[in-house]
């Protein structure tokens, strides 16, 4: 079973994270201080993902990422912190975090992020030019989308959107993830601008005959073209 390291000083939060980890079928390992966490990450065997807090007894998790990497860990790092303003998120990502989720977080959001990271660990290589999901075909180099061999005209942003969906096919993708990954924006605009874009893409695909994108209530969206057919 995959192991996920949780470095978090608030026990209640740690328990909530652990619940999500177990829900994904992984084993949580919890440490409450930075030094213990770094020691576990570098000497405690292989972890798939490390969920790292920032304001910890012993220091800032973001500053410790270099130590974790230097210690030989190849785990993906998800920073989960109360320091959640845009600048701090960008700082965390620039210093080597693979994802950054601000507190308070919704459990579904964390689950989606963890799942995306676990997935990234397995199918990192997508050098294949063609992403095919039944009747739906995405050509990465030509940047085209076809449904039942008919071309579907999408805008550049919509293409990036469908590509991101495709890479996380079958998983819940949250609005926040879309905003961060497709638009590279690290703040909460308040309005659900993303919904409009997803809605347009979805309509285009449905008109062409692919029920590819579904809403996951309260969580986000799921790209699941196979199930639709």
């Amino acid at each position, binding site marked *: 079973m995959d192991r996920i390291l949780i470095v978090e000083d608030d026990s209640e*939060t740690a328990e909530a994270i652990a619940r999500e980890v177990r829900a994904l079928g992984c084993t949580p390992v919890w440490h409450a201080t930075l030094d213990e966490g770094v020691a576990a990450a570098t000497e405690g065997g292989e972890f798939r993902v490390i969920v790292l807090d920032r304001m910890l007894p012993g220091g800032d998790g973001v500053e410790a990422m270099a130590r974790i990497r230097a210690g030989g860990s190849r785990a993906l790092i998800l920073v989960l912190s109360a320091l959640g303003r845009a600048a701090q998120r960008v700082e965390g990502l620039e210093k080597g975090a693979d994802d950054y989720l601000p507190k*308070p*977080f*919704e459990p579904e959001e964390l689950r989606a992020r963890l799942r995306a990271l676990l997935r990234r660990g397995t199918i990192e290589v997508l050098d294949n030019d063609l992403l095919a999901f039944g009747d739906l075909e995405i050509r990465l180099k030509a940047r085209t989308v076809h449904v039942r061999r008919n071309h579907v005209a999408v805008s550049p942003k919509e293409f990036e959107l469908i590509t991101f969906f495709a890479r996380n096919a079958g998983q819940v993708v949250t609005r926040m993830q879309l905003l961060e990954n497709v*638009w590279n924006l690290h703040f909460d605009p308040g309005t659900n601008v993303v919904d*409009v*874009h997803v809605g347009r893409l979805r309509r285009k695909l449905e008109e062409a005959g692919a029920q590819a994108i579904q809403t996951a209530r309260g969580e986000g969206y799921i790209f699941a073209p196979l199930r639709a057919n």
Partner: protein
Amino acid sequence: MSGDRPWAARATLRLTLLLAAAVAALSLLAMALQYRLVEDRMTEAARATLTADLGGLAALYEQRRIIALRQAIEYRGAARNGGEMLLLLDRRGNVLAGTEAGWPPGLTASGSGFTIDPAAEFTSGGTRWLGVARELPGGFPLLVARSLAPVDDTLAALRRGMAALGLALLLAGGGVGWLAARSVMGRIGRVNDLADRVAAGDLSARLPGPRSHDEFGLLETHVHAMLDRIENLNRATHRLSDNIAHELRTPLNRLMQKLSRIEGQEEVVDDLRAEIRQSIRVFDSLLDISRAEADQGTGGGLVPVSLSDVAQEVWELYEPLAEDKGLLPHASIAPGLQVLGDRNLIAQMISNLIDNAIKYCGPGDALRLTLSEGEGRHLMQLADTGPGLPADLRAEAFERFTRAERDRDRGIKGHGLGLALVRAIAARHGAKIDLPAAEKGFVLDIAWPKLAP
């Protein structure tokens, strides 16, 4: 700033020049008094000599009248030294004896005694003389005079000396003034340079080297103390916002986790989550505002950013939303305009503005974003034909928690922080915000400083 410095230096220079001129004037006055004194004394001495001469001649005249005078003048004339003039004529104007060939023109004899008064000053042979012209009984004109040339020479030398000294005083005063102005301005200039650097955002700038033990050193020490305090306050603001974030988000986080364990009341849970998200947004905005204000002017954290690209991206994010709401969106964004900035903050700012416009405008309203290159700045304008700002709100539109009554009435949600954040982010980037008068709707101009190529 530095361009104004020669004017400031001129003020100091002017002061020292004034002082130098006053000192020079006082010295000249003192010298003039002395000059007058010397002139009086020397004229007095000339009169005394003349009186003595007259006394001698009077004694001779007492003994043997004209004969004795004539002998004495001849004798004295033979030993002429140029310093005295003696002349005795007969009734017909012929020279009986004397140092001169003829009576000096323009001089008339008066009186007949050997007293000094009345004496006359006259010019002959290019020099001034002090003399007495008499007509002795029997019609013998007599002239006895002493040259004033030594007096004039001495006075002329004195005048030359005074002129030279006055000039030297002025030059010295000016020179000392210039040196003093330069040294004072040098010291003040250091403090001014420091103030410029701090104003430009470098709060940790300090003057190198030790402080001297004069008022300039004291000024520098005071300025340093002030800067230390400002820097500490700034650091405290940063620390405080991190601590607030931590202390407030941790309990909210627990709340969020506990909510997820509630089953069967999904709507209530969703509402509560939305409320939590909303509270986070409010205090994030507040923290963003105070952080942007604290960082205002500091170049730290700003990198070259393509303003055109950010504007285009945010516009594309919101355009479909505007279209769906029935607005008529139109963007005209000049490509390739660069600023020194924080991409996320700029995106947040533009997003705030467009979001506001979409919120307040109705179907059929136009929404326009323009970005163009101006004379010295990049000009960004966001304009809509919606309801615009209420007139009474224009002045305080950018203050925190300013909300129009009518929005509350219409049920438009908001916390009144949007424009405050816009202003803070603009200030952080040195951009100027302006609300030009518009016939209809809301128009906002932002003039961004260009990134030096």
